[in-house]
């Protein structure tokens, strides 16, 4: 799963002609912003090393990130972040918000969704994500996660997916499911396709042999086989169409 690392999209001109983010400016901002973003469990600080350049250190439970300040500045330049105090501070906050998900957060707040299982976007599988505001970040189990914990976290996440409220829009013979704030969560309802079918039927749409058309991070479409084929067959965008009983057989990623 890939995410823009520094939040909102920069303008085209800004990305084509980025202005360099100076390491010294980033350091000034980091010294001010990092303490404010820290919490009792999330520790953020600058590690100053004479002659070797500073490191940003992020520690939360079992997760630890150490990133060269110069590297972060280069990444911000490439992402088209403007070199103002405010924009650098926003980019740094967005970078912290996109930090790795801890095992504890996944266990207590994880939600199961569908994601691409390969870079070429040809197959999908289940993944645990954790919501942070308008983001949903993927969880990668740490090396200390044993099989029992892994199973428990995935099972709890699947349970939580049942409770994710989704909007249903009926467009003729097609039912469309979306999440009003976090697009990644649109596939959460697929943990219980029978409940989706029931809601579709309650909305007045008969759907024998329901197929689901899934593009992770986009609304989910449900329709009969011929209509699902017409829907997905006429777009250049990647998607996976499958009969709903096969959802339970998809692997965990």
């Amino acid at each position, binding site marked *: 799963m890939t995410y823009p690392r520094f939040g909102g999209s920069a303008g085209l001109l800004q990305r084509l002609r980025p202005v360099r983010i100076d390491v010294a400016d980033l350091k000034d901002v980091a010294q001010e912003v990092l303490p404010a973003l820290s919490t009792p469990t999330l520790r953020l600080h600058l590690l100053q090393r004479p002659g070797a350049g500073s490191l940003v250190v992020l520690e939360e439970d079992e997760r630890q990130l150490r990133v060269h300040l110069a590297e972060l500045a280069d990444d911000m330049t490439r992402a088209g972040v403007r070199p103002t105090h405010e924009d650098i501070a926003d980019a740094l906050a967005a970078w912290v918000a996109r930090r790795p998900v801890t095992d504890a957060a996944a266990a207590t707040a994880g939600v199961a969704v569908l994601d691409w299982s390969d870079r070429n976007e040809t197959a999908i599988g289940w993944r645990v994500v954790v919501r942070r505001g308008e983001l949903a970040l993927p969880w990668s189990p740490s090396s200390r996660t044993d099989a029992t914990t892994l199973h428990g976290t995935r099972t709890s996440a699947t349970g939580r997916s049942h409770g994710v409220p989704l909007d249903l829009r009926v*467009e003729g013979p097609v039912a469309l499911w979306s999440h009003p704030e976090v697009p990644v969560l649109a596939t959460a309802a697929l943990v219980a396709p029978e409940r989706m079918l029931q809601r579709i039927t309650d909305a007045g749409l008969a759907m024998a042999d329901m197929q689901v058309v899934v593009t992770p991070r986009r609304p989910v479409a449900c329709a009969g086989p011929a209509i699902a084929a*017409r829907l997905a067959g006429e777009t250049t965008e990647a998607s996976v169409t499958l009969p709903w009983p096969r959802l339970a057989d998809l692997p965990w990623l």
Partner: protein
Amino acid sequence: MSALPSGAPGPEVLVPHWLAGAQRTQLATAVRQALTSRPVHPVAVIHLEDVLTELHVAAARDAVWPASAARVRLATGWDDDVLPVRLSAAELSSVLALAELPAPVRGLLSGNARA
């Protein structure tokens, strides 16, 4: 040697026709009127029903994957409600055979460029 194609026919080619919301409503109204007001050949009925389905599917396609149509709208300056409605040759012929089809919609479906 036979020049006839063998085996099952390949998937039909669907050609996009860019129609605004009001034009899609006019197209749907004309098709429904034809289907309910007089006897229509059973094969044409299937094609016309598929046109009604496509009008919904076009809207659904845009809801799931809005980027490609949005790029075309940006390049052409068309309004936000202009969507590609994808029809097979048989579906298009069935629609063009309807006397009640409004002239501007007929013009767009016949291949005349959008204003």
